């Protein structure tokens, strides 16, 4: 069966396989969908803005849309630092109710305090991946503390939330999926909370 979401490493360095597997498994779990790792050597070099020394997330999304495979969503993961023109940085960006999302690991791997906990870093990246994918399904930001759809503006806020949808967001997600013509119940496992 074809995957609902293709997960694609588009970073400059080599992909961390452990991280990519975790993203694949946990996003599938969060939304009750099929996910698959996608590998291709193409990179959105044009999205780099030399003046800012960052990549434009908007440009990456447009580039992804041009490469999408019909019926699939694409979640791109990069080690490049992302920005949108008015903001200093973004952890990620997604098309609201669209097909493409991108998440940057650049600021999520920043060391805080003593030492780095790789599991914590993976968890942060997974949370932002679930979050951006949530937007592609049409979910908006949520005010429920702990919900993965809360907007995180710093690492403390990323760490504070779970990687799952809150009850109302989960209900909303199911409604949106129904509307979108998907009938997961019975065909996919129930999203684990």
């Amino acid at each position, binding site marked *: 069966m074809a995957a609902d979401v293709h997960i694609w490493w588009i970073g400059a360095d080599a992909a961390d396989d452990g991280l990519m597997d975790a993203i694949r498994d946990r996003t599938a779990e969060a939304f009750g969908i099929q996910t698959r790792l996608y590998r291709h050597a193409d990179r959105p070099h044009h999205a780099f803005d030399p003046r*800012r020394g960052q990549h434009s997330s*908007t440009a990456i999304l447009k580039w992804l849309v041009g490469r999408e495979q019909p019926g699939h969503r694409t979640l791109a993961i990069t080690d490049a630092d992302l*920005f*949108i*023109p*008015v*903001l*200093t*940085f*973004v952890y990620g*960006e997604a098309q*609201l109710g669209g097909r493409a999302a991108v998440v940057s690991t650049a600021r999520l791997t920043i060391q805080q305090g003593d030492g780095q906990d790789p599991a914590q870093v993976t968890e942060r990246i997974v949370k932002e991946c679930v979050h951006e994918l949530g*937007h592609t399904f049409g979910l*908006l*930001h949520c005010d429920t503390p702990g919900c993965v759809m809360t*907007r995180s*503006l*710093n690492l403390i806020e990323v760490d504070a939330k779970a990687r799952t949808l809150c009850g109302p967001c989960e209900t909303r997600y199911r409604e949106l999926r129904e509307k979108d013509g998907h009938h997961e119940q019975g065909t996919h496992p129930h999203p684990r909370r």
Partner: protein
Amino acid sequence: MSKERTRILVVDDEEIVRESLSGWLAKDGYTLATAHDGPTALTMLREGRWSILLVDLKMPGMDGLQVLEASKQIQPDVAVVIMTAYATVETAVEAMKSGAYDYLVKPFDPEELSLMMVKIVAQQALVRENVLLRKVLKRDFHFRDMLSKNPAMHRVFDLAKSAAKSQSTILILGESGTGKELLARAIHAESPRQASPFVAVSCAALTETLLESELFGHEKGSFTGAVARRKGRFEQAGGGTLFLDEIGDISAKLQLDLLRVLEERKVTRVGGTEPVDVDVRIIAATNRDLTKAVADGQFREDLFYRLNVIPILLPPLRERREDIPLLIEHFLEHLGVETDRQIEGVSADALAALMRHDWPGNVRELRNVLERGMVIAKDKLIQAEDLGLSGAGIRADTFDPSLTLDEVERRHITAVLQHTGGNVTQAARTLDIDRVTLYNKIRKYGLRRGDDDAFNT
């Protein structure tokens, strides 16, 4: 307010900025729209309500500051945030001076943008809540034009509402300026007689003969000056309500005449012979202690009982001080319209002085004091010294040899009236003259204002 109802308009000539910013904020659940230039934004502002405008400073044609100024004209409560790529203090100061909520230097920190939006939404929600609460407050504390949150006053309102439905005579008791006529008008407005006239007569302002003619009317030639037949107030109020203010001050003869009218429901014009049927609801009022007047033999007991069918006692303002802030707001709003002056309120000191004052002239005195404060105030807040609550009046030790006796009298009466908050009864007592004499002097010196009710008795 929910985020969907927070409408944000992004105004920027760069498409990428419009798209990215609106995309970013849309995910927070706000309703977003974009405009590529100032004129388009202003058209959108004229066509619908917007909570927040995010406007780029540098745009070809109309710049951000021009958009800011024009948008404030169209919708004064819109929060305008100026976005600029140039972090100059001058620009920021200019924007803030022109009424911008704040400014953001591009590119801005996501946290800064989010916090600013949340802050604006919360602030606007507070303003709306405030407006709503005021409306609820006014609705709950109103009885027609009367305003109070005092439990005793609410009992008065309840009693007045019930009494309004009946035909019974009502006797309103209360100190000067407590709103006896206002209550009488409210009762009339709530009564089945509301479509017919409400006629008010101040019994103390007229001599016995004049009052008799005023109340009952006269036939032509019945006395000197009666050049034509005239209907009295009883007849004028036909089908409606006759408000007899200062009923405690009428002469023994008039007391008897009035008693007859109340018993027979007929009046005979002065100089006339044929009694005329009258259909009026009587509301009488006095600031005197009628029970004592009856005991002292100054007021007929039978008339007292005729009038005292439904007695309503209006408490003095000093016994309902919690109403003072409410009344201040009410009067400032009304006086603002009358005087075309925008006053935001009273300073903390002024409020303390107003709360402390004993208000011998009650609500009317408060209104007069606020009117004075409004005229004197130099800025948008009335200060304690603008109220003239202490040391009002002329200094006794001031000697001006150029003054005529009339001028001295005029000044003294003015000062005493100011001191009593326009309370004529009290002023007459202080001056040791009767009220008719004081009314004549008020008229002589032109101290009375346009309306008949300007001074309180």
